[in-house]
């Protein structure tokens, strides 16, 4: 009788622990916290600055965030908080917000919701932050929305396009910021319906709230008879060959992809391998040309091939709600100046622009909240609407709508840059709301780099 009765536990534990580390490790960068150092500036009013709310002193405004600085979501996204910090450093060096310096403390949650619940409580209960700003990720941030609202902590400009942040009756403290995936789906869907009439269309999407919201928006605009295949992927399985084969077998001439950058790259490379070359239409989240071309080249290299990333991204249709990377744009000029002064080590790409723009919106909201704001003042200020600032389309913000930006332009990737095609389009998040051309004009960046109150 030589059956090993007992499990070799030591080995199992070693394997499990190793797995835990693999999950926890991966890339990282970004600092833990940052604060300005120069002296206080003046405000136009003469009322003395007081400690009007938790996290606000006569000299500082302390805000917090949870960010994936390590783990699978870190590449690319870990540039966002340093970019916001760079903008706050700029504001602090130019007088601050009503004379107060912004102290931005962001903690690493490694994109793990259990860690998020812990670090956000640390920020709120121990570090006494005034607000949680730009907390990143859908599953991560969902774990703390209930807590933040029960503690009445402003939860502003969540870094995720989930429609779930727009729930003002239940979660009055929570606000979105970026274009939500339903609106984005409608805008991309309308473009495809108009420009690819009668063509066979396939969907490729991430199997979660992100992809499903996107498909919801697409389905509102694209006639069901044109859609020949709907294929989803899970972000833990990098083999997308079965999905791509089905898209090809269904004869899809246009593939619309709601995917994160790594899976946009996998979709493109797998299609190439199968000799399949549909027109790609990719959500903003998964189409940053600089990130994408880097991923395409490194994935191909791992498989022993050499490709030119920019050649492969050529012609991809996408959308954008942030200012483009063009030297003639006033926002580009401003953001590049701040980049070179405060965050020159990081690439000047879409993630950097994102962090800059969301920090700019926060400063707008703080200025509107008043000289000695309470937490409720910030929420009320945003409920009263915000100017669009660097965004391409206006914000939806009102007491009954906590979605962020409402529109985007369609662009194509040409030589590694997104080139705008046609006007900015806006819409709402309902199934019936029309997609219309935005008639307003883009705002210019202020010369000082700081929004006027």
């Amino acid at each position, binding site marked *: 009788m*030589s*059956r*090993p009765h007992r499990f070799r536990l*030591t080995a199992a534990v070693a394997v499990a622990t190793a797995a835990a580390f693999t999950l926890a490790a991966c890339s990282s960068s970004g600092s833990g916290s940052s604060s300005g150092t120069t002296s206080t500036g003046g405000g136009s009013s003469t009322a003395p600055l007081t400690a009007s709310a938790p996290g606000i002193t006569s000299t500082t405004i302390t805000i917090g965030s949870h960010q994936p600085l390590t783990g699978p979501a870190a590449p690319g996204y870990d540039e966002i908080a340093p970019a916001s910090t760079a903008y706050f450093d700029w504001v602090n060096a130019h007088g601050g917000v009503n004379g107060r310096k912004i102290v931005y*403390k962001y903690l690493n949650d490694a994109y793990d919701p259990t860690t998020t619940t812990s670090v956000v409580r640390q920020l709120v209960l121990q570090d006494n932050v005034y607000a949680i700003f730009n907390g990143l990720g859908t599953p991560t941030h*969902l774990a703390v929305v*209930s807590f933040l609202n029960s503690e009445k902590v402003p939860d502003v400009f969540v870094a995720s396009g989930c429609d779930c942040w727009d729930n003002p009756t239940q979660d009055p403290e929570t606000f979105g910021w970026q274009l939500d995936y339903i609106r984005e789906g409608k805008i991309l869907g309308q473009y495809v319906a108009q420009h690819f009439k009668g063509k066979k269309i396939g969907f490729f999407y991430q199997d979660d709230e992100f992809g499903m919201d996107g498909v919801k928006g697409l389905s509102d605009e694209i006639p069901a008879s044109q859609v020949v295949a709907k294929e989803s992927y899970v972000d833990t399985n990098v083999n997308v060959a079965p999905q791509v084969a089905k898209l090809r077998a269904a004869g899809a001439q246009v593939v619309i992809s709601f995917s994160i950058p790594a899976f946009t790259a996998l979709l493109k490379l797998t299609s190439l391998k199968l000799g399949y070359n549909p027109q790609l239409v990719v959500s903003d989240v998964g189409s940053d040309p600089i990130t994408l071309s880097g991923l395409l080249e490194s994935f191909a290299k791992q498989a022993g091939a050499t490709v030119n990333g920019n050649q492969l991204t050529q012609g991809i249709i996408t959308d954008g709600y942030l200012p483009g990377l063009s030297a003639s744009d006033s926002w580009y000029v401003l953001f590049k100046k701040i980049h070179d002064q405060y965050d020159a080590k990081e690439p000047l790409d879409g993630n950097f622009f994102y962090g800059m723009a969301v920090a700019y919106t926060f400063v707008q909201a703080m200025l509107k909240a008043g000289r000695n704001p309470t937490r409720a003042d910030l929420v009320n200020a945003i409920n009263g609407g915000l100017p669009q600032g660097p965004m391409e389309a206006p914000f939806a913000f009102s007491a009954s709508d906590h979605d962020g930006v409402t529109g985007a332009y369609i662009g194509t990737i040409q030589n590694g840059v997104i080139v705008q095609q046609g006007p900015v389009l806006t819409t709402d998040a309902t199934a019936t709301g029309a997609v219309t051309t935005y008639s307003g004009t883009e705002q210019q960046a202020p010369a000082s780099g700081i929004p006027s109150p």
Partner: protein
Amino acid sequence: MSTLPRRLATLIVVAAIVAFLSIKLSAFRDYQIAEVAYEVTAVAGLTVLTGLSGQISLGHGAFMAIGGYATALLLMHLNWPFVAALVIAAAVTAAAGAVVGIAAARLRGPYLAGATLMLGVALPAVAYAYPATFGGDQGLDVTFTVPASLSNSVPPTRWDAWVGTTVALVTMLLLANLCYSRIGRNWRAVRDDDVAASLDGINVAAARIRAFVVSATCAGVAGSLLAIITLNVAPGAFTLALSISLLTAAVIGGLGSLPGALWGSLLIILVPTYATDVATSHGLSSSVGSNIPIAAYGVVLILVMLAFPRGIQGGLRRLVALFGGPPGREREPERKPIATPEHSEKEGSS
């Protein structure tokens, strides 16, 4: 002193220490006490399963999910008091544990690990399949407040710490009694040699299933606590990483030891936060700072395993023995290290 009064005395001392700390420390530390409470409840169940009955589970996060969702649904739809929801959540998880346990009793070693791993990965996905009931990605919000009579004097996190600690201590007391009863002795017999145990008239399968049920129930209670402490249950909270961290805590603390479950949980909860605090307060360079906590956690795990191969509790016991602790008072079961290489080889070649 006989066993039960001694355990009750320990329990009261621990409760008093926690009560004192919860009043002295900040709200965030109270939250951490509550975190340790749910962690230790789950780890205690797992350490009994693995250390005493010799079965492994890489999917205990799934049982926590069952307990958490059951609690959330009962609080939300039926407005039950928490205690009632807790009891039902425990019962539901026990039933789930029985089903898994029946399968587990037939599986050995890596196959059992694989099956429970699958459970841990797959079960939370049920929430996506039935979004109307389980709220999909967003999960369910949980309302849990301080009772009206105390709401002016007790802050919410302190209340969470008290409730969590009470539940954890009661669970530990029940587990301790169970482990030294006939049932616990049967588990150890089955763990050490199932053939010998069955020759002695022990129903091996029943003992294994019983251990799984007990262990799953503890995880369900822990999930229930997690729901009221974090105010939300969502599939994202019950990942594979959670299941593995439970096992890590059990091993680090000392498999099969209930005090060990406490040491392991304290380590798992406190080391990352402490390391982050140190890293951020020393203004370390960006790419180093965010990796320090992970590295520190890893180093601590390695050091503990090197210094105390039987976990922290095993190490403490050894230290006490070295410095001449009272002989013969040792009532903890003397556990052989499970399946050391030479042991399994001997067994394999016999």
